[in-house]
């Protein structure tokens, strides 16, 4: 059976839609969380949403909606604690992590729900997603995409420098709350795809991979969305094909695939940053004495430096220095000067 024949199954069609939507929306929020250095906020919200799921299972209402509501409340709480003291931001996240998870497991037990029921939310069950869930996932994702793209200049400014944004007249608190609410919505979007415990991965890992190679915010965003999409769809496909021979869960496969993108991007990024550092111009000393007698001639020098001589050429003021065994050689007439 080929991958395309898999698409004849309605459950695979629904799963594919959910994967595309999640891969698209999650990195768009994630980039603002990474920018604020709040990479773990998605994780905190995921844990809080566990309690919401349990409440839904306990009361017989739709777990998707109870999860949205508790995640939004958790997001507002995190934002409140963050606003009141930067020093306590990570502690606040930790409090919510454990409170949310413990509350969820406790409530599920009280309701007598089988552990498997909660597990489908903890680790995702993209292939059992219902039509109604697909529709609501798409609606939530559309909200996330519209907010993140439409207000991206404002959200960028507020995340980059909140104080400057406030003096610029932006309603910083409103935008902070908006990011928190959108993150909470994303948690519920990704809940069925990768599960609550791995939600944050799809928000953060594609951004982490993309920013290895990007120099601008826009490039990071485009790259992150691409990595998110390819990981989500690719992970679903790999797990579907592999499931003929072994039990391969789609959620973890998607996350591991996005981590693989990071593992590929990181060495390339590290190498290119290293190259950039080596080639960065030496600072030009504006107070250098323009005295031709005052220079330091390099000793015995057989090698002729040139564009392809193998030594790193670095701009220095109006000329080029060649990095040679820890020395900086600049051409001066027939010889080289030490710079």
């Amino acid at each position: 059976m080929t991958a395309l024949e898999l698409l004849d199954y309605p459950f695979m069609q629904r799963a594919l839609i959910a994967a595309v939507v999640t891969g698209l929306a999650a990195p768009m929020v994630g980039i603002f969380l990474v920018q604020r250095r709040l990479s773990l906020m998605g994780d905190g919200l995921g844990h809080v949403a566990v309690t919401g799921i349990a409440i839904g299972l306990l009361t017989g209402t739709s777990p998707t909606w109870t999860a949205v509501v508790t995640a939004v409340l958790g997001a507002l709480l995190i934002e409140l604690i963050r606003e009141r003291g930067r020093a306590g931001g990570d502690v606040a996240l930790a409090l919510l992590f454990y409170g949310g998870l413990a509350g969820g497991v406790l409530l599920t037990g009280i309701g007598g729900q089988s552990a498997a029921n909660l597990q489908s939310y903890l680790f995702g069950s993209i292939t059992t997603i219902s039509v109604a869930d697909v529709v609501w996932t798409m609606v939530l994702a559309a909200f996330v995409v519209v907010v993140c793209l439409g207000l991206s200049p404002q959200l960028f400014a507020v995340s980059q420098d909140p104080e400057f944004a406030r003096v610029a007249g932006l309603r910083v608190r409103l935008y902070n709350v908006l990011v928190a609410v959108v993150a909470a919505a994303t948690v519920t979007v990704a809940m069925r795809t990768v599960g609550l415990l791995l939600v944050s991965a799809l928000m953060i890992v594609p951004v982490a991979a993309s920013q290895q190679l990007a120099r601008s915010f826009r490039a990071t965003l485009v790259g992150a969305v691409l990595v998110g999409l390819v990981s989500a769809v690719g992970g679903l496909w790999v797990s579907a094909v592999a499931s003929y021979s072994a039990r391969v869960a789609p959620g973890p496969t998607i996350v591991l695939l996005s981590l693989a993108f990071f593992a590929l991007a990181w060495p390339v990024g590290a190498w290119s940053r290293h190259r950039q550092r080596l080639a960065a111009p030496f600072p030009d000393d504006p107070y250098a004495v323009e005295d031709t007698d005052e220079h330091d001639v390099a000793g015995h020098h057989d090698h002729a430096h040139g564009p392809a001589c193998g030594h790193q050429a670095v701009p220095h003021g109006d000329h080029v220095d060649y990095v040679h065994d820890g020395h900086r050689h600049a051409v001066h007439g027939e010889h080289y000067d030490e710079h």
Partner: protein
Amino acid sequence: MPLTPRPAPHGQEGRAPAESAAPPVRLTGGAVALGGRPVLRGIDLTVAGGDFVALMGANGSGKSTLVRTLVGLLPLGRGGLELFGTDARRFRDWHRVGYVPQRGSAASGVPASVWEVVASGRLTRRRPLRPLTRTDRAAITDALGTVGMADRARDNVAQLSGGQQQRVLIARALAGEPELFFLDEPTAGVDLPHQEALADTLRVLKDRGSTIVLVAHELGPLAPLVDRCVVLRDGRVVRDGGPLTDAEVHLPWHTMLGGGTGHGHGHAPDGAVDHGAPPVLSPFDRPLDSPAPDATEHPR
């Protein structure tokens, strides 16, 4: 509209004439408390249009606190603050104000290009959900050119030197084409060539008729530009007048004479002022330099 007795001078968009009646900044009897402890007391400061004012003083003298109060980041405990003749609590023309925060770095958790950071300064004049207009782009390009960073527009800010990042932050403030600039310690940790580049940029702004309020520990190459020096000591103004004379420049701050506090005993001479707060914060505490959340938002 302002409810102050004086006529509302600035209903119109864009630049006001330089001879406009209301001064850009008028602070009367200003007092600011951080974490419940009084920091600034009895500050009267009026900045006229086109003035270049340097706020000086030792570490902990309150000069940064004063600037952060003037731009609305810290709440005024007592006294009145008017910006362009409008009570600061009702002031909404933030596009007329440019703020360059005290900051080692312009970078954040995600790469951002120089152009993107500078473009965020244009948000003072942009409505949400509208694309950049040609005017916006021209202003951003012009701001980059003014600070001499036009050729670095596509570079990642995180890879610039401290002095270059400072220039990016100035360009960000410039992009909104403000009339009134607040710069918080723009020369701190910046080497002499970059301080001179900064002085050139500020000279351009001064020649355009901008009003500039600048916090500095030392003036260095900026000294020739300064029209007026306000010296703070322990939260009070001890000197307000023309540029510092050579003799005054070499006076240590704590011996500066003036109509100030009148008692000089028991203060830490030069280091940071101890506000007496416990050093450890719980998750629900606010750091001392952060305003109470209920008193901070600009009303809209």
